[in-house]
Each structure stands twice: as C-alpha cells, then as structure tokens.
C-alpha cells in the first residue's frame, strides 16, 4: 500500500510518501494508525493526537473503521485549513 502524509504529520514523520506491504493484522484505518504509531518516535508524534487525524482512501475521505487493502493509496493529514 502507498501511504501519504501531509502538513505537520509529514514533517513529524520526515517523509510525505512511502510504500509498504499491508501487515496481516491491519484491516481498517484504525488498525493502520495503531501499526504506524509503533514505527518510531516521528510516527508516534505524528499520530499522538488521534482525535485530530483525518484519513483518505484512494482520494476519498475515510473514517476509522473504513477497510483498507494492499492496493490502496492511504493519506493521513490534520484537519484542513484551506480557503
């Protein structure tokens, strides 16, 4: 799966994009957040305020229980502030 990070999540993690093989334990966005949070300090810092994190699957807004597959493009980002 391809994973994208934006704004301060990107800065804390240190990259805007990475590709990884979906772990077997990961079925939903919530599972993926739990998994990514364990990957180091930067990830832990990026995901620490769960309430604030938004996700998209294949360029559409998603929720914590949205299912994810290994073919998906997943994006994580803070609440949007455009306009």
């Amino acid at each position, binding site marked *: 799966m391809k994973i*994208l990070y*934006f*704004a*301060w999540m990107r800065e804390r993690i240190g990259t805007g994009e990475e590709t990884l093989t979906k772990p077997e334990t990961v079925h939903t966005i919530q599972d993926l957040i739990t998994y990514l949070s364990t990957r180091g300090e930067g990830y832990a810092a990026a995901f620490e305020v769960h309430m604030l994190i938004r996700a*998209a699957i294949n*360029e*559409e*807004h998603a929720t914590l229980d949205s299912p994810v597959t290994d073919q998906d*493009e997943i*994006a994580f*980002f*803070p*609440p*949007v*502030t*455009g*306009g």
Partner: protein
Amino acid sequence: MLTVRVEIDDFNQGQEIAALQKKRTDIGAIVTFTGTVRDMTGTLTSLTLEHYPGMTKRELERIGQDAITRWNLLGCTIIHRYGTLKPGENIVLVITTAPHRGDAFKAAEYIMDYLKTSAPFWKKETTKTDSTWVDAKDTDDQAKDRWS
C-alpha cells in the same frame, strides 16, 4: 457549467465573471467570494499552502456539484491557489451565477463552508522568527453544520 482549477497563478475576478456571463442573458445574479492572505499580527512574512494534488480537484468538484444540485445555479467557478503567497494576496475564488440572488448567495456560502472543512489544503504561516501550521477552527465546522 462547473469549472474547478487548483493552481499556483493568481486570478482576476472580473475576467472569471466575464467567462461565466459570456453570451448569456438568463443570469440575474452573480456572487463572488475571494479569500485573501490576512496578516492578523502584522508579523506575517508569507503563507504557504500545501495540498493533496490527487484529491483537491476532485473534492472541490464534488462540493461544486452538490451546490448545483441544491440550488438553482446557471454556473459555478472554484479556483484555489497553492504555493507560497504574500500578505494581501488572493487564495481562493468562488463564483456562482443564478437567475435570482438568494440562490447565488446561498450556494457561494455553502461552497466556502464545505471547502473550509473538507478540501485537503493546509496553511503554514511564516514570520521572521518561525513557521507555524494554522489550526483548524471550530467555527468552520459549525458553519458547515448549518446546511444539514
């Protein structure tokens, strides 16, 4: 009928309005909203807009289409800039055209409320001393909720 552009370049409101008016005589009302870089403290050097390129255009199109479904519109243009902007520069332009002013006003407000809460753009403010990501505002969520 619906035009959406996400771009670095500035826009001119008069020119974009004229494009919607061209050869039409059924329009009675045109509303535009322009969002600009506001320097709240007098210390802002620049504002940088990051976005999710694959998703922004699609999301703005969805919002524009929702507005067209909901109100009696004849045309709609949404332009959002990204990149680094100076205080006072234009960020976003929404234009709605309709036979009557009520539809044009409501649709433009609706588009801005949804754009503010669902289009994937993020603002970072830079001053002489540091750079800070702008926090999302509760008032924007409240503004959106009044349409449901």
